[in-house]
C-alpha cells in the first residue's frame, strides 16, 4: 500500500523532481551561480513570453494534440503593429495596447474559424498563419527596426533597465516590497487551503489526509518565500512576473474549475462522446485558437518591451518553446491530458537548462541539441510510464 502510494506520488511529481535534480546539477556545475538573485530574476524576465504562450498552447493541445505553429509570427506581427502605432503614429499607449490585443484576438478568430467550423487541419491552418504573419511583419516594419521610446510601456511590460515594480520602502540592497508580497502570497495561499478544508469538513465531504496536505502546503510556501527572498536581494519583482502570474492564475483556474475548462479536456478525450453530451465541440476548438491569438498579443507586448524595439525577426521559434514546454510539462500529444501548473514546470525546466548551459558557456548549437533531447526524453518517459501503469 505504502509502496504503491509512493509510486503514485513519484509519478505525479516526476517533472518537479527532475526540475530539482537539474537545478542541483547546474548549481554544482556553475559553482552556485545559477541560484544568484540576478540569474533568478533573469530567468523570469527572459522566459515570460514562454509562460504566456505555453499556457495558450496547452488549450490547443488539450483539444486533441493540436498545435499552433503561427504564434511566433503572430507575436512578431502584433509587436510590429504596436511599435509602429506608438512610435510612427504617436498613438496613445492605452489605445495601442487595446489595438494590439484586438488584432491578436482577430488573428486567433481567423484561424479558429477555419479550424473549428470548416475543419481545416490546425497544422495546415497555422502553418499558413506562420508564413502570412511573418511576411506581414516585414511589410509593416518595412524590414527595419523600430525602437520603442515610451518609458511607461516599457515599465509596464517589463522592458528596458528599470522594469521592476517600484519599492515603496527604499531599503538599501533589499527590496522589502517584494519580500512582503511574497509573505502576503503565502498567507493568502495558506488561508485558502484552510478555508477549503474546513468547508469540506463542514459539508461532510471527504478530505485528504492532514499530513499530506501539511507537507504540500509547507513545501509550496517555502518555495514562494525563498523565491521572494532571492528576488528581494536583487531589484525586486520584475513587472513581467506580474503578467505571468495573472495569466497562470486565471488560466489555471479556468482549466481546473470551470465548465469551459472541462470542455477542453472532454473534447480531447473523446470528441464524439462530448458532442453527444450536448456540448458544442466546434465552439471549443474556436475558443482555443481565439485565445491563442489573444495570448500571442500579450506575449508580443512582453517581447517588444523586453527588446525595447520591434524587428521582423522577433518571435522565431517561440512556437517551439511553447509546444516543448507543454509536452515536457506532461500534456498528452493525443489531447485531453495536461495542466497549467505542469506546463509552467515544463517551461521553467527549459528555462533552467537554457540558463545553466549559458552560464557554463556551452556552445549555442549544443544547447539546441540538449533541449531537443530533453523534449524527446520527456515524451518517451510519459509514454513508457503510461504503458507501465496499464500493465
Amino acid at each position, binding site marked *: 500500500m505504502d509502496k504503491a502510494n509512493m509510486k503514485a506520488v513519484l509519478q505525479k511529481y516526476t517533472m518537479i523532481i527532475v526540475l530539482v535534480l537539474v537545478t542541483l546539477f547546474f548549481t554544482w556545475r556553475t559553482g552556485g551561480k545559477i541560484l544568484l538573485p540576478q540569474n533568478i530574476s533573469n530567468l523570469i524576465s527572459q522566459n515570460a513570453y514562454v509562460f504566456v504562450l505555453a499556457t495558450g498552447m496547452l488549450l490547443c493541445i488539450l483539444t486533441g494534440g493540436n498545435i499552433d505553429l503561427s504564434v511566433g509570427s503572430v507575436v512578431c506581427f502584433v509587436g510590429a503593429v504596436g511599435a509602429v502605432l506608438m512610435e510612427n503614429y504617436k498613438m496613445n499607449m492605452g489605445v495601442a495596447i487595446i489595438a494590439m490585443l484586438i488584432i491578436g484576438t482577430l488573428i486567433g478568430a481567423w484561424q479558429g474559424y477555419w479550424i473549428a467550423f470548416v475543419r481545416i487541419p490546425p497544422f495546415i491552418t497555422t502553418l499558413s498563419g506562420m508564413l502570412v504573419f511573418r511576411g506581414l511583419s516585414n511589410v509593416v516594419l518595412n524590414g527595419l527596426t523600430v525602437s520603442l521610446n515610451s518609458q511607461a510601456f516599457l515599465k509596464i511590460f517589463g522592458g528596458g533597465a528599470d522594469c521592476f515594480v517600484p519599492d515603496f520602502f527604499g531599503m538599501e540592497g533589499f527590496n522589502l516590497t517584494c519580500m512582503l508580497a511574497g509573505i502576503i502570497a503565502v498567507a493568502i495561499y495558506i488561508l485558502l487551503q484552510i478555508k477549503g478544508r474546513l468547508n469540506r469538513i463542514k459539508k461532510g465531504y471527504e478530505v485528504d489526509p492532514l499530513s499530506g496536505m501539511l507537507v504540500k502546503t509547507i513545501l509550496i510556501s517555502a518555495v514562494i518565500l525563498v523565491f521572494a527572498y532571492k528576488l528581494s536581494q536583487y531589484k525586486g519583482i520584475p513587472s513581467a512576473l506580474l503578467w505571468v502570474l495573472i495569466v497562470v492564475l486565471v488560466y489555471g483556474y479556468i482549466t481546473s474549475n470551470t465548465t469551459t475548462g472541462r470542455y477542453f479536456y472532454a473534447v480531447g478525450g473523446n470528441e464524439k462522446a462530448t458532442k453527444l*453530451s450536448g456540448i458544442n465541440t466546434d465552439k471549443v476548438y474556436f475558443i482555443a485558437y481565439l485565445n491563442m491569438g489573444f495570448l500571442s498579443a500579450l506575449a508580443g507586448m512582453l517581447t517588444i518591451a523586453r527588446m525595447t524595439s520591434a524587428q521582423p525577426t522577433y518571435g522565431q521559434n517561440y512556437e517551439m518553446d511553447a509546444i516543448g514546454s507543454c509536452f515536457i510539462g506532461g500534456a498528452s500529444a493525443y489531447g485531453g491530458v495536461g495542466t497549467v501548473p505542469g506546463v509552467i514546470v515544463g517551461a521553467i525546466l527549459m528555462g533552467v537548462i537554457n540558463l545553466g548551459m549559458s552560464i557554463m558557456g556551452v556552445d549555442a548549437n549544443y544547447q539546441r541539441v540538449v533541449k531537443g533531447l530533453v523534449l524527446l526524453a520527456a515524451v518517451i518517459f510519459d509514454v513508457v510510464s503510461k504503458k507501465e501503469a496499464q500493465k
Partner: protein
Amino acid sequence: MGKILLEMKSITKTFPGVKALDNVNLKVEEGEIHALVGENGAGKSTLMNVLSGIYPYGTYEGDIIYNGEVCKFARIKDSEEKGIVIIHQELALIPYMTIGENMFLGNERGKKAAIDWSETYGQADKYLRQVGLKESSRTLIKDIGVGKQQLVEIAKALAKHAKLLILDEPTASLNESDSQALLDLMLEFKKQGMTSIIISHKLNEISYVADKITVIRDGSTIETLDKAVDDISEDRIIKGMVGRDLTDRFPKRAEKHIGEINLEVKDWTVYHPLYTERKVVDHVSMNVRKGEVVGISGLMGAGRTELAMSIFGKSYGTNISGVLKIAGKEVELKNAREAIRSKLAYVTEDRKGNGLILSNPIKINTTLANLDSISARGVIDKDKEYQVAVEYKEKLNTKCPTVEQNVGNLSGGNQQKVLLAKWMFADPDVLILDEPTRGIDVGAKYEIYCIINSLVAEGKSVIMISSELPEVLGMCDRIYVMNEGKMVGELEAEEATQERIMAQILKSSKGE
C-alpha cells in the same frame, strides 16, 4: 476418444497485483469444436493470449502441450507456424486495402521483396471460396460489411494453414443470419477435420455448435461439459458461469403504471449523411408511454441506431423530416444540447467510441452531460461533483476503488454502468438505450435490467434497442420490429415470440 490435440496444463498467469489465471487446465481433442465460456474478466482472453504467444513463454507458469510436444512460444509467429491461429474480437483489417492484400499481410506471396500479385489474388480467391464468400479478392475491405469481413478473417487464418482455429467472440457484431452462416461454416470445417476453440457470450450459439464446453470463472477452470454425456442447455451453462442458478434472467417488475404518451414520432425520415440519396429511416412512426419499456428489434443495419440518434438532436443523418412530439408538444431539436434540455437521453451502443472519455475519471464522465447542475456561473463545484459520482456509483453498484479511477481501466459491465449513470444524472424523462447489454457478462446484465425496471417505476420511459431477442422479449412491454429502415411490425409483450419477430423481419425483406 479422439487424439488430444492441445493440452494446457496448470496455467497460472499473474499481473502485478492480480492473478488472472490460476491453475487453468484445458484439453482440446482433434476435430472438435470446443467452447470457452465465462463472465467478462474471467480470463478467457488471457488464456488464449498465453496460447498464441502474445504473453511469451516464461511470463506464465504451466505447460502448453500441442500435438504431443511441449511448446514454448516466444511470439505470435511461433504459434502460427504450428497452425494455431487466433481471430480476435476486434477485426484487424485495413479498410483501404483489398481483401487479398489483407489476407496475406505479413505473409506476402512472392519472392523476397517483390510481391507476386497474381499468386496473391489467385490464392485469396481460393480461400474465399472455401469460406463461401462470393467477393472478388480485389474488393476493398471498406466496401464489404462486417459479416463478410469476419469471413475474410477466417480465410486469412486458412491462408496461414490453420489447424487450430481460435475465434474470440466471432459473432459479437454480426446479425442473426450472418451469425448463423458463420456457425454453419464452423460445423463445415469440423467435418473437414479442423479443430476450433470458440469464445462467446451467446450461449444459444454455443449450445448449437460446441462439442465440449469449458467454463472459466475468476481465473480458474470450473468444469468441462461434454455434449455427448452432459446437459448443455443455456441454464446449465449459466449456472456454471455465475456459480449459482439464475432461475430468472430478467427481473420482474413489481407493478406496471403505464401512463400517457411521453414521446412520439410520425413519418420520421432520415437520409444518410454522406450518400444523401440513400434513405436510412423511412417514414417511421412510433411512441413510448410513461412507465413503459418499448423495444426496437431488428437486424444489424435495420436503421435502429440511426433512428435513435436522429431523434436525439439530429445527431445522425441529413434531410431529416417528420414530426417529433415530447409530452404532447411538437418540438424541433437541433442538437444534442436541445435534446438533453427536452429531457431526452441517448445511451449509445458504442460506449468506448461515442459514450465515455476513457482517459478521464469516473466522476468527470458522470457529470459531463449535466455540468450546469453542479456549477454556478460556469464554475464547477468539485466537491459536489465528487458526491454525485459516489452517489451513482453506489446506486448502480459500480465496482471500482474510487470515482477518481479512469474509466478506461474498468471492465465492460462497469463502463456501461458509468455510461448509464451519466445519462441518469442528466435527469431525462425518456431514455433511449442502444444495445445496453452488449458485450457484458450475465451478472452485470441482470443488474442493468434491474436499473431499467427502477427507471420505469419512477415514471420514465425507456426505448430499448437490442439485437438479442430473449432480452427484448424478457424486458419490454411492447416491441417494434424494424427492417431496412421501416417499421414492419408492432407486438404486445404477451403475443411476441422470437419466431414471430423473425417472421415479420423475413416477410418484409421478401416483400421488397
